[in-house]
């Protein structure tokens, strides 16, 4: 079945670029972090960082984002390093999500990221999207910010004045807004390594790969039949990922039994105040939160629960 239509010449000189969708911008592609930091330092120019572009470019296609200057950090190799110490996993912000998903350091150091990454977009999105980009973009329905919060992780932000560490608890200010300054670039993502913690990431979405309606990331440690450490982070229930502090405190009062886990899940749902929106009602999000938190904690403990 050959195609008999004549092949057009490879390059069509008459095609004009004026019909494309993103608004005009200036573009630079620094090869080193220092160059990128210098570009970012100019506060008179509204610049954005382009990493994978899987969040930024759709916004530019819709003209929701209209930056003056796009700084493409995709060519900066030093931002793609992954390393492990005994205490911490360090993932370069420019690491592709697909690469992080198969990195042995991530699997051993922060398996919660692996679980979360499986829910991020689709294969093609993960092939270009980056770990740092997703966190810096701070979409309220994104998975990596929730996982970072549950891990009590942090990021390193850098500008010409130096580097600073920002804990996840201080990073997310509101939807699509982090506490990073406009001169800064998110360069590293850090997660403390906790070999005895069990983790689970669960989410509910209309289709696999869609943004989560609600997501829950949980880390638990059990000692002598009691929870000695519990962190529960939720996404999709507020403008930022949230920790369920009251539920966490409650969890520490007991151990991994079906009844206690259910109590903790109910407390987590009671502690949030979601709004109705186009995708789901507040009541739905509250109900699903209880289900997901119960499921996630149960996953971490291997406890058998009754089918409700």
């Amino acid at each position, binding site marked *: *079945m*050959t195609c008999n239509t004549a*092949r*057009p*010449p*490879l*390059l*069509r000189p008459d*095609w004009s*670029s004026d019909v*494309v*969708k*993103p*608004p*005009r*911008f*200036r*573009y630079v*592609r620094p090869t080193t972090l220092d160059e990128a930091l210098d570009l970012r330092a100019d506060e008179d120019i*509204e610049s954005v960082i*382009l990493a994978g*572009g*899987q969040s930024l*470019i*759709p916004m*530019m*296609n*819709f003209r929701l984002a*209209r*930056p*003056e200057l*796009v700084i*493409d950090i*995709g*060519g900066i190799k030093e931002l793609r390093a992954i390393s492990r110490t005994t205490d911490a996993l360090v993932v370069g912000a420019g690491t592709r999500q*697909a690469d992080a998903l198969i990195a042995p350091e991530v699997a051993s150091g922060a398996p919660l990221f692996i679980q979360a990454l499986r829910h991020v*977009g*689709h*294969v*093609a*999105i993960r*092939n*270009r999207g980056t770990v740092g980009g997703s966190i810096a973009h701070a979409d309220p329905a994104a998975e990596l910010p929730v996982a970072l919060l549950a891990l009590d992780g942090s990021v390193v932000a850098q500008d010409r004045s130096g580097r600073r560490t920002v804990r996840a608890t201080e990073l997310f200010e509101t939807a699509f807004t982090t506490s990073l300054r406009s001169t800064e670039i998110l360069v590293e993502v850090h997660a403390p390594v906790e070999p005895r913690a069990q983790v689970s990431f669960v989410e509910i979405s209309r*289709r*696999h*790969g869609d943004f989560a309606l609600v997501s829950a990331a949980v880390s638990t440690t059990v000692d002598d039949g009691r929870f000695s450490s519990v962190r529960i982070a939720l996404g999709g229930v507020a403008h930022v990922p949230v920790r369920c502090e009251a539920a966490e405190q409650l969890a520490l009062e007991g151990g991994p039994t079906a009844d206690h886990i259910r109590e903790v899940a109910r407390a987590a749902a009671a502690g949030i105040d979601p709004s109705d929106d186009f995708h789901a009602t507040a009541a739905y999000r509250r109900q699903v939160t209880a289900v997901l938190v119960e499921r996630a904690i149960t996953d971490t403990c291997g406890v058998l629960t009754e089918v409700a």
Partner: protein
Amino acid sequence: MTTDEKTEAHPVEFELNGRRIRLQVDPRTLLADVVRHEAGLTGLKIACEQGVCGSCTVLEDGRPIRSCITLAVQVDGSSIETIESIAGHSADLHPIQESFQREHGLQCGFCTPGMVLTAKALLAENPDPSEQEIREYLSGNVCRCTGYVGIVASVRDAARCTRSARTSTVGTEGEGV
């Protein structure tokens, strides 16, 4: 605030279906538009322009990406493959395309280039995927016609054919997956 003046064209050089091309593009030019308009390769479809439907899928260094949310300038130095290139020189169709034909993996054909390229990447990574693995890997490619059953069957058939071609003692003319 955007600049209204004409922006400077930015050079980009990459391999497209095995040919080195060098362009000067407005940096906002999407890879999808370069492939369709500059290169005339219209197998790639543009539908959602936000990366969710998969009809714009191309392979970058063998990996599926969304060309509608990739700037052409971002693939400098990469090797891009579109659907037009996958059949070998001696064949009309790539084995995966033959499987899609046999197993009714398409109706209107709009999603098909994206499906086939994604399947090609899947089978390169996992030559014996389960149905669940196929569905998972292709979950980023939307089809409005088929209900996916024929697509999954096509990919399974392609996997089976590729495996038997590999283990066959008789040499085959078709290129490897």
